[in-house]
C-alpha cells in the first residue's frame, strides 16, 4: 500500500509541472500586469520599463522557470493590490477553505451514502420516491439562492419570531469575534455554509450511490451471500456496500475541482475570507500573483484529492493493488 501511494505521488509530479506551465502561460496571455500604466503620461516608456523590471520581455519558458523555482521555495511574490506577501495571504485563506471542504465533503459523503443505500434497499418505496424528488430539487436549485433561503428561514426568521438575542445559526464568518477553536460557536457558524456547500453534492452523490447499490444488489455474489444463510444486514453492509462504494469514490475525485470552485459562491455569501473570496478579489483587480497562487493551490488540491480517492479505492478493492 505504501509503495502504491509513493508511486502515485511520484506520478503526480509531472502532472503538476505541466499544469503549472499551462496556468502560467494562460495567465500571462490574459492578464497584463502593466495594464494600469496604460493611461498614464508617457505610457509607452513606462510600460517598457516595467516589462523589463518584471521580466515580461523574456521568453515565456524562462519566465515560468523563474516563477516556478521561487514558488517551490515558498516565495509567491507580492500582491499587486495590497503589496502583502501572497504566500501569507494564501495560507491564511487556505485555512478557512480547508475547514469548509473537510466538513462539506465529510457530511456530503455520509448523508449521500446513507440516503443512497436506503433508497436502493427500499427501491420504489414512498421514502425512495420522496428522496428522489428531493434530490432533483437539490440538483436544480442554484446554491446562492439556497443560501439566501437558508439564511432567511434558519437564521433571520427564527431570531425574529422567538426574539432571540443572537441567531441560532450565524451567517458571517466562521467564528464570532474573540472566539476560536472547535466549540458551539464554531458549529453555529459552520452549519449554513456547509449546508449550502453540500446540497448539490448530496443530491448528486446520493443518486449515484443508489444506482451503484442497485447494481451491486443484483450481482451474483449477493445471491451467494444470501445462499450461505447470511443475515440481511450482513448481505447489505458487508457484501453489497463495500462494492457499491467504488463508483462513488471515483466520482468524488472527479468532482474535486467543482468543489473547490464552488467555494467562491459560498464564501462570498457567508463572508468567509477563504480561497474563493481571495480569488474573486484578485480577479477583479487583475492581481496576477494571487491568481497564479490560487490556480496552483487548486491544482494541488485536485491532485491530492484524487490521490486520496485512489488510496481509498485501493483499500476497498484488492484488485487495484496488485497492478
Amino acid at each position, binding site marked *: 500500500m505504501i509503495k502504491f501511494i509513493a508511486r502515485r505521488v511520484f506520478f503526480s509530479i509531472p502532472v503538476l509541472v505541466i499544469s503549472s506551465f499551462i496556468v502560467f502561460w494562460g495567465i500571462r496571455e490574459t492578464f497584463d500586469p502593466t495594464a494600469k500604466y496604460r493611461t498614464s503620461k508617457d505610457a509607452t516608456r513606462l510600460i517598457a520599463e516595467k516589462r523589463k523590471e518584471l521580466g515580461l520581455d523574456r521568453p515565456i519558458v524562462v519566465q515560468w522557470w523563474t516563477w516556478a523555482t521561487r514558488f517551490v521555495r515558498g516565495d509567491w511574490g507580492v500582491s499587486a493590490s495590497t503589496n502583502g506577501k501572497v504566500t501569507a495571504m494564501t495560507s491564511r485563506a487556505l485555512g478557512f477553505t480547508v475547514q469548509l471542504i473537510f466538513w462539506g465533503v465529510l457530511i456530503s459523503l455520509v448523508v449521500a451514502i446513507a440516503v443512497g443505500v436506503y433508497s436502493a434497499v427500499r427501491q420504489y418505496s414512498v421514502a425512495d420516491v420522496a428522496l428522489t424528488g428531493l434530490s432533483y430539487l437539490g440538483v436544480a436549485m442554484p446554491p446562492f439562492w439556497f443560501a439566501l433561503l437558508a439564511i432567511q428561514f434558519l437564521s433571520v426568521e427564527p431570531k425574529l419570531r422567538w426574539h432571540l438575542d443572537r441567531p441560532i445559526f450565524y451567517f458571517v464568518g466562521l467564528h464570532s469575534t474573540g472566539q476560536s477553536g472547535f466549540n458551539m460557536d464554531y458549529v453555529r457558524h459552520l452549519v449554513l455554509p456547509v449546508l449550502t456547500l453540500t446540497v448539490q453534492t448530496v443530491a448528486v452523490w446520493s443518486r449515484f450511490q443508489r444506482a451503484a447499490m442497485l447494481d451491486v444488489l443484483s450481482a*451474483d*455474489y449477493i445471491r451467494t451471500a444470501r*445462499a*450461505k444463510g447470511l443475515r440481511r444486514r450482513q448481505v447489505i453492509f458487508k457484501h453489497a456496500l463495500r462494492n457499491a462504494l467504488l463508483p462513488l469514490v471515483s466520482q468524488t475525485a472527479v468532482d474535486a475541482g467543482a468543489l473547490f470552485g464552488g467555494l467562491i459562491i459560498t464564501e462570498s455569501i457567508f463572508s468567509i475570507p477563504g480561497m474563493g473570496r481571495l480569488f474573486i478579489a484578485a480577479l477583479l483587480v487583475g492581481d496576477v500573483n494571487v491568481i497564479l497562487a490560487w490556480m496552483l493551490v487548486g491544482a494541488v488540491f485536485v491532485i491530492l484529492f484524487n490521490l486520496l480517492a485512489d488510496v481509498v479505492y485501493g483499500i476497498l478493492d484488492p484488485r487495484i493493488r496488485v497492478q
Partner: protein
Amino acid sequence: MADEPLLEVTDLSVEFPTDDGVVHAVDRVSYSLAEGETLGIVGESGSGKSVTSLAILGLLPKRAKVTGSVRFLGRELIGMKDNEMRLLRGRNIAMVFQDALTSLNPVIRVGDQIAEAITAHRVISKHDLSARVIKLLELVGIPNPAERANQYPHEYSGGMRQRALIAMMIANEPDVLIADEPTTALDVTIQAQVLEVLERIKQRTSSAIVLITHDLGVIAGVADRVLVMYAGRQVELGTADDIFYRPRHPYTEGLLASLPRLDRRSGSERLHRIKGQPPSLLALPPGCAFNPRCPHAKHKSCDGPRPELVAIGRRAHLSACLRVDEIYAEAQESS
C-alpha cells in the same frame, strides 16, 4: 409411515412477468430426493434448471411468481419468511452457482467468505474457525490452503474458484447440495477434478446432491436418477440406467445422440445435434413443447393436451411423450 423424502418438490411453477408477456420459466416440476441420493437434472440452456433450484431456496427476485410446494423434511418452504428461510440456507440446503467468478465477492478474501458461511449458523472460536476453513479448502483439493485462504478471488484460477465455492457451500455439511452446472465453465480435466470433489463430498458427508447440467455426459456414472427438462417442463424421469440405456422420450434420445461415444465408429456416424431452437417460453406450442423439433411428431395427438409424466410399465420410469406407447412399442416388448 413410509420414510419421508428429504426434499419433495410438487408442481413447482415459476412465472416472470415481463414487458413482452409472462415467461413460464418453470411449469409444474415435481421430484423427490432421498437421503444420500444423487439426482441429475439435464436440459438445454434456458430449460428452467437454475430457476427451479433458486425457487427452492427462495432466492428468486421478488417479481417472480412461485407456486406449488417444496417440502424439506416435511416443512413447506414456498412462502416461508425470509428470516426463517435464512436459517435453512447454507445449513440444510446449499447451492453452488453456475458462474464461480461472478459468484464470489471480489473484495473479500476467499477464506473469510468461507468462514462466514460457518459463522452464519453457529458459534465457533476463531482458532477452530480458521482450522475449519483450511480443512475445507483442503477437502476440495486446493493446494497450500493456509496461504490460499488469505487470497482474493481474482488470484484464483477458474477451477479453484469453483472449488472454493463448493467449499463454501459444504461448510455446514448440508443435507441437500444443489450444484448448478459446476463444471460448465471449466475445461475437461478440471471438470473431472471438480466432479471428483463432489464424489468425495458425497462419500464423506451424507449429503444428497442435485447435479444440474446441460451435458448428459457429466452425470453419467455420478447420478442415481435423472430428470430431463425441456422448456420449463419435465419430460422424462428415471434411474440413470433407464435414461442412458432405455430412454423413452425423443428429446432424451436427442440429448444422448449428441454425446460423443466411444462405442460409436468414428466417421460412420457424426454427432447429432437436435435440430432447431428451443421454443420461446412466452408462446409454447400447444400440446407437447418438443413437437416442432421432434423427429416423430407428425401426428395429431402431439398437438394436445399438454403431456404429463406417465409411468412406463411398473418401474419408476416416467415419460411425458404422448406417443410413448407407439414410438417405443418394440423396445417395450423386449425390455
